[in-house]
């Protein structure tokens, strides 16, 4: 029994740091911002499966009451929601340029984190498709991976399967 207990303790110690890191205290653990809607036909055609999950007014109202999300609800509200910030909408509409990385108005890390949670974890920071060919902020050079990228580079399907690469 004693070895088993020791094993169990070890296992716990190994997994716990990851679990703590994964569940950062500042990122709220909330459901994706989506609700199932009835699959009634639209324009003479049934809704496709992906169309039955929608952001409804009720979901936006839920965000306003959700702990850890409520103060950010204005980022995700429809422009006519009560949760929308009139000042924010006016500012965005009157800006002469789009918000760019590095700008003061660029959303803070916590906002991107909440956005990702509300998207059900679908947010992907861009990593250039050939990053493995260089030592860069996206990681160390990886010869084998780089060769694979080079070999597949003229195959359009390789780029189709990447979130941001273009042929």
């Amino acid at each position: 029994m004693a070895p088993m207990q020791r094993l169990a303790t070890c296992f716990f110690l190994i997994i716990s740091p990851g679990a703590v890191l994964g569940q950062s205290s500042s990122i709220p653990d909330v459901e994706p911002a989506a609700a199932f809607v009835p699959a009634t036909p639209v324009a003479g055609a049934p809704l496709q499966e992906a169309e039955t999950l929608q952001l409804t007014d009720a979901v936006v109202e839920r965000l306003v009451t959700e702990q850890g999300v409520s103060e950010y609800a204005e980022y995700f509200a429809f422009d006519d929601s009560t949760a929308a910030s009139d000042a924010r909408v006016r500012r965005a509409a009157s800006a002469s340029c789009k918000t760019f990385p590095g700008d003061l108005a660029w959303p803070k890390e916590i906002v991107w984190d909440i956005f990702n949670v509300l998207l059900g974890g679908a947010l992907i920071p861009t990593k250039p498709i050939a990053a493995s060919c260089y030592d860069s902020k996206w990681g160390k050079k990886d010869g084998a991976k780089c060769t694979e990228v080079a070999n597949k580079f003229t195959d359009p399907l390789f780029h189709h399967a990447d979130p941001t690469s273009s042929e």
Partner: protein
Amino acid sequence: MPKNDTDGKSCTLGGYPEYAIKVTNVAQIQLAINFARATNLRLVIKNTGHCYLGKSTGAGALSLWMHNMDQIDYLPNYKGPGYSGPAFKVAAGVTVRQIYEAADKYDVTVLGAVSWVSNAEDIMPDQDD
């Protein structure tokens, strides 16, 4: 002046978006549009292939990646204004090759445009992709 960065020390994203969303439902699209409006972000759409005008990518942008939206519904008795008959309802990530295969399966004709640039090149020309 831009120069070839052969050692990768100063690699940047250049014209690529900052973030992409792997879209699998409509709620994510609505959330992204609301977010882009509220923060005044550049929003681009990459369906599956590319856009000749470059609209499927963009510096500093948030990108909707529609590749996985690939449902094809065959509607044998579609009724709409000005047309009644067989029709397809096609999600945004579907390629011309995929819809041609569906048309073959149901023995109907779909008019698409395909450029055989390489072995499997196929795009939906009427979309930003």
